[in-house]
């Protein structure tokens, strides 16, 4: 089985993109570390290559950085790919992919709501699960909740 073209292309076309070691990824989906500035272009390129279905978008707090993870799939060829973007924890900003995949809308809002990742270019980046007056971002590892009357 030959390597699909896009795997090499990603590394070639987008400098700074690196494949993540397969030991860490247990699900066997090829994964790439992408520079934050290029994510929109990479997703656009992949969409043109047939990765038309955004399976999942979520973010993780790794204490020193945030990581936003995109799981994309091509429904035709059934190929899957994972994109990982490390962003600055102090200034967590990343381009929104909602214009390309409208389905990312609420998932980005969720990541903003729970982790405070700001997606620039998002049409309506407001809290979605928590109430709009909530303080802090609960899924951050350093989040501590103020005790309320139930504690």
């Amino acid at each position: 089985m030959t390597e699909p073209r896009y795997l090499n292309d990603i590394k070639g076309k987008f400098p700074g993109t690196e494949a993540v070691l397969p030991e860490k990824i247990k699900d066997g989906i090829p994964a790439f570390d992408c520079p934050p500035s290029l994510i929109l272009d990479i997703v656009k390129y992949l969409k043109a290559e047939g990765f038309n279905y955004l399976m999942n978008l979520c973010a993780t707090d790794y204490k020193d950085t945030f990581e936003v993870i995109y799981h994309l799939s091509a429904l035709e060829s059934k190929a899957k790919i994972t994109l990982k973007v490390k962003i600055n924890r102090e200034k967590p900003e990343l381009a929104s992919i909602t214009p390309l995949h409208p389905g990312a809308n609420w998932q980005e809002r969720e990541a903003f709501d729970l982790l405070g990742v700001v997606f620039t270019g998002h049409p309506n980046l407001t809290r979605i699960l928590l109430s709009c007056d909530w303080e802090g971002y609960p899924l951050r590892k350093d989040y501590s909740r103020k005790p309320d009357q139930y504690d």
Partner: protein
Amino acid sequence: MIDNKLKDKDGFETMYLNMGPQHPSTHGVLRLGLVLDGEVIVSAEPDIGYLHRGMEKLAEHRTYQANIAMSDRFDYVTSMNNNFVVALAIEKLLGVEIPKRAHYLRILMAELNRVVNHILLFGFFAMDLGATTALIFGFREREEVLDLFESVTGARLTYNYFRVGGVARDLPEDFIQKTGAFIKLMRKRIKDYDDLVTNNVIFRDRSVGIGKISKEDILAYSLSGPVMRASGIKYDIRKDDTYSVYKEFDFNIPTREDGDCFDRYLLRMLELRESLKIIEQVLVKLEPGEIMAKVPKVIKPPAGEAYIRTESPKGELSVYLVSDGTVNPYRFHLRAPSFINLQILQKILPGVKVADVIAILGSIDIVLGEVDR
């Protein structure tokens, strides 16, 4: 926020209607902010989060096995399927192979739960369109499956049946025979369903051509499951990205072309039949054997991450699980099908009538426990 000053097409004032969070048919605590021009929707915005329990945060403070127990509460209609995906993800991180019989039992339970979900959809969808009797019919058959579940797991709603490395208990003696009887009964009842609802003129009038979702929208909005297949995309994770031992079973992936409410409803009725087929095959293939693999008492998966997809009755139910080598998950993210399928409302609601809002919402099949987590 929605603009309350929107004008209708003749320049008159519109009416802002809060549908929910307390409303008989928003399937829980969903709030829809509707701007109405008479009975026609000008714009709509779903507002969610009323049932948010912070499950992703809770998961980080629970052991892996306890997370399976918590997963019962995501989509409380299809607990078995939730158990399934979490158990699969943990096993993927651990690298455990589970015994054959455990695989079969898992598929048996997951498919029975799919039957339950689709029966409930039948009832609730008809109820949303005003046919009250169908709801009771649906619940009647659901009871049968719940009795089966109760005989295996001891619970009727939150089963907590799956374990890391297998399942909790083996089947009771008469389970196979009872399930066989249930399949026979269900096949008969599906005919009743068709007579009462599917072939009803008013039902068709209310659902055919309502809330059409195009193929392009399906892909753009990442819709999955029956909603996707009703629009003509033949994609089922059980077949196309197979997991567990689904490839051993012979079943079809029904699709429909129009992507309207009726197709979404009918697709579930077709899937119901396929699920019964799978259950029948499992019952034949079941052989005595181990139901648990050898797993350590304290589950500490090595550091790593996995994204595991399964086909829940509502769509693609996936878990993104990150382990840092401790007893608790480092990150637990649930890709909830209801949550993502719900997004399409904003796109397809403008222009339909108030009554269609309910029909569309019902046909997309959401459970707020999963939307809000």
